């Protein structure tokens, strides 16, 4: 960072907790300037001030500004409202949406310091992450999501008018049950555009004309081709995107139902990167609000009172209670992510012997480039596997506990010592992997020639069973499919006894 104190301004933008729109604008300009100094690349920002009631509304629809009506959002709303009214849960300072322009909601109750924190966090932290991270780039289209939401809402409401809200609700319920299994984890080849398709056809035609040889006609024909084998398995490869399979092949879905399935699938796909980059995304945003606001203080644009308040909020956000504390509710992604990015910067700027041994290629490198690289090219799983340092494992006192079915007690697998670092890091990385959190259930057979039944296969790993709710999910799927649906469980290529079946 440049230390030319002469260029630094020394009068704070404001004092005290009150904010108005003019001040917001000034703070935003200052933050934007610092962010540009650090080379953060973002979508344009749109900042909206909302009340706490509106924040509760936004909570219910997972932050989306427009959603289709569904009872589950009502349930979510009631749950949050209740918790908020009873003082059991505070509200987030902000919600930010991965769209272009990037919309950030700020609560009117926030103080000036909090608003500044939130602007740095959401409008520059999250925003640059949305724009830069490969998962978001690959899977979501920030430009069009708002339009799509408008379309989805209108479509759902039209369906309700024509088909009755109950029919629509049934389809949506079924789709929601399968939402985690409605995402593509690997990219499909993009469908050819009409232009490319015609060009290809034309090229083939030309090739045929060029290589035409009348001689081929004189060769006697073989006997009639063997008919397709009736017991051919379809789909040829197991399909993991169950909603996509339903949308494409369900024998009974009406067109409007198919479109509903598609809408839910699109939303699931839109949220898919968020679930996989929780630690990175929050860590990145927290790291940048911390860095940007400290820089503002260095420049003398904010006073000490501002910093004290900011640091108080900041430390609350990055607190990590121990596993046996009453406040513990899992690893705090803000804490872990912030610590990892900060640590990464430290490794770049002031590496010690251990860092040189563990991170030979980044120790001592340019921290901005390294962080940018990390932000763009990883997800939680790989980010932890790559960058969690032994120092952090020590700081967090991380330890791995093994829970084996065959044993009466839990076993402490490894702790923060020389023997344990790699193992703890590997396990923590796996813990953030999609496959560990969402069971592996795939479509293996659609009996097209026979009774049109659909067979799913749950590949069980390490004996971890599904909950009983799986029977309800199968029933939901049957409603979409229209014919018998059964769920088999396999482990190590052996089919296990129990089959959940819901017949037509």
């Amino acid at each position: 960072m440049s230390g030319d104190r002469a260029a630094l301004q020394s009068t704070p933008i404001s004092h005290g907790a009150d904010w108005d729109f003019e001040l917001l604008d000034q703070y935003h300009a200052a933050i934007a300037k610092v962010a540009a100094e650090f080379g953060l690349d973002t979508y344009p920002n749109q900042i909206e001030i909302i009340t706490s009631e509106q924040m509760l509304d936004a909570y219910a629809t997972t932050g989306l500004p427009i959603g289709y009506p569904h009872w589950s959002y009502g349930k979510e709303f009631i749950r949050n409202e209740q918790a908020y009214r009873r003082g059991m849960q505070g509200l987030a300072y902000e919600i930010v949406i991965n769209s272009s322009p990037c919309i950030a909601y700020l609560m009117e109750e926030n103080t000036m310091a909090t608003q500044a924190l939130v602007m740095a966090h959401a409008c520059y932290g999250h925003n640059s992450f949305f724009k830069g991270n490969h998962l978001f780039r690959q899977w979501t289209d920030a430009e069009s999501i708002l339009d799509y939401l408008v379309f989805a809402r209108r479509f759902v409401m039209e369906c309700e008018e024509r088909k009755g809200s109950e029919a629509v609700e049934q389809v949506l319920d079924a789709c929601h049950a399968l939402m985690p299994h409605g995402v593509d984890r690997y990219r499909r080849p993009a469908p050819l555009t009409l232009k490319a398709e015609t060009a290809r056809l034309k090229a083939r035609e030309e090739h045929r004309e060029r290589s035409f040889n009348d001689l081929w006609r004189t060769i006697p024909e073989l006997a009639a081709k063997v008919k397709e084998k009736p017991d051919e398995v379809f789909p040829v490869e197991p399909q993991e995107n169950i909603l996509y399979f339903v949308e494409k092949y369900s024998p009974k879905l009406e067109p409007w139902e198919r479109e509903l399935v598609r809408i839910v699938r699109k939303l699931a796909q839109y949220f898919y990167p968020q679930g996989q980059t929780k630690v990175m995304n929050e860590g990145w945003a927290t790291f940048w609000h911390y860095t940007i606001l400290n820089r503002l203080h260095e420049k003398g644009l904010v006073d000490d009172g501002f910093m004290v308040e900011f640091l108080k909020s900041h430390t609350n956000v990055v607190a990590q209670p121990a596993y046996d504390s009453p406040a513990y509710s899992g690893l705090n992604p803000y804490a872990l992510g912030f610590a990892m990015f900060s640590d990464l910067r430290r490794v770049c700027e002031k590496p010690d012997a251990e860092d040189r041994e563990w991170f030979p290629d980044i120790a001592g490198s340019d921290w901005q480039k390294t962080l940018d690289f990390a932000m763009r090219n990883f997800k939680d799983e790989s980010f932890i596997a790559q960058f969690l340092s032994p120092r952090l494992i020590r700081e967090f006192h991380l330890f791995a506990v093994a829970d084996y079915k065959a044993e009466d007690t839990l076993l402490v697998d490894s702790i923060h010592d020389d023997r344990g670092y790699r193992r703890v890091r590997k396990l923590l990385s796996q813990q953030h992997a999609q496959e560990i959190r969402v069971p592996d259930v795939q479509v293996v057979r659609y009996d097209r020639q026979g009774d049109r039944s659909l067979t799913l296969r749950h590949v069980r790993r390490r004996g971890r069973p599904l909950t009983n709710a799986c029977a309800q999910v199968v029933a939901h799927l049957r409603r979409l499919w229209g014919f018998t649906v059964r769920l088999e469980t396999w482990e190590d290529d052996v089919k296990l006894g129990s089959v959940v079946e819901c017949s037509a």
Partner: protein
Amino acid sequence: MVHLIDRRPNAKGKSAVNRERFLRRYKAQIQDAVKKMIGERKLADMEQGGEVRIPRKDISEPTFTFGRGGDREIVLPGNREYIAGDRIPRPEGQGGRGGNASEGGEGESHDEFVFSLSREEFMQIFFDDLELPNLARTELGRTERHKSVRAGYTKWGAPANLSVKRTLTQSLARRIALSASLAQQQRDVQAEFEMAAAIGHASHAAALHERIEHLERRRGGLPFLDETDLRYRNRVLRPEPIARAAMFCLMDVSASMDEDKKDLAKRFFTLLYLFLTRKYVEVDLVFIRHTDDAEEVDEDTFFHDTRSGGTVVLSALELAEKIRADRYSNGWNVYAAQASDGDAFGADPARSARFLREQFLPRARYYTYLELTAPHAQDRASSLWAEYQRVQELAGNFAMRRAAHREQIYPVFRDLFKKDTVSTS
């Protein structure tokens, strides 16, 4: 460049439609809950919203998720004492180590989805089979004022309202209650220990000493503050009295009035009460029950306590008049509602009717009589009914109807107050 948009003026009820859908989907469960609430509630509380509990499993949204079992490793933060290879007993449930007394209570609340119905939602469900139209609110209500007053303590609230004194009182009480038996045990064991030490029974004494220490630890382990201890100051908005009304509820509680009839009566009284609260900011309730003798009782006794005996209506009327003269003679609008099955004997009906006509009615705004009949005996007129019919002919502020089913209550009520609604609205 940044766009700053002030969304605060936008409508806030964006989730209202989703909330309404949720209520509709679980209507049956909510109706059950409301029915239960009606039974437990006091008339004056009837109009408030209420807390509804729905078993969480009924409203869960199923997905394929992992259940318990199988092999897995979990990485946790905050290790202090373990090294690789240590064995830890498997925790019961998910509470981890150091489970304490409050866990049972928490588990319960996790199984139920609790939420509040607003006043309107509650009334809508309450009157679902009564088809309540909007009652006209009269001009009188315009000038009402509200004052925020303390109203005791609640278990839930914003942290700012935490009452430290109350909370600590609760905590102290809980700790005394929970540690009393431990202290007793400790004293006993201590005595035994001294005995054993005195006679030199060393191994026994050592065991006892260990036991004493164990009890000591358990006493020490009681949490100083528990979630159940928290108390919050509660404030409610109370209307400043501007127009006042006293409502007399008179009910026959003789043996022939069974629970069904009382339920009908309660709905009738509730309606009248609601009607009055729409016209008057403050409504006082007086409950008078009678068999062959009348007494003023509290609401709970009024609706739930059964008595046996004959029926003398006059006694209730006399008591009502006495109370009216004592407490509500000045500046009060007096309304009365009487519910009975009409089984009065001898000279009582005639004397009651006369007393009503000559003494009570001239000083009351309105008097309604509801005769509760058995579902299939509509045509048999009771002796009281016959006498009261004559009162109706003579007095303008008296009305009477019969009802046998829940659905009939509202139409009856509307009939009764048609004149009044027209004249005041």
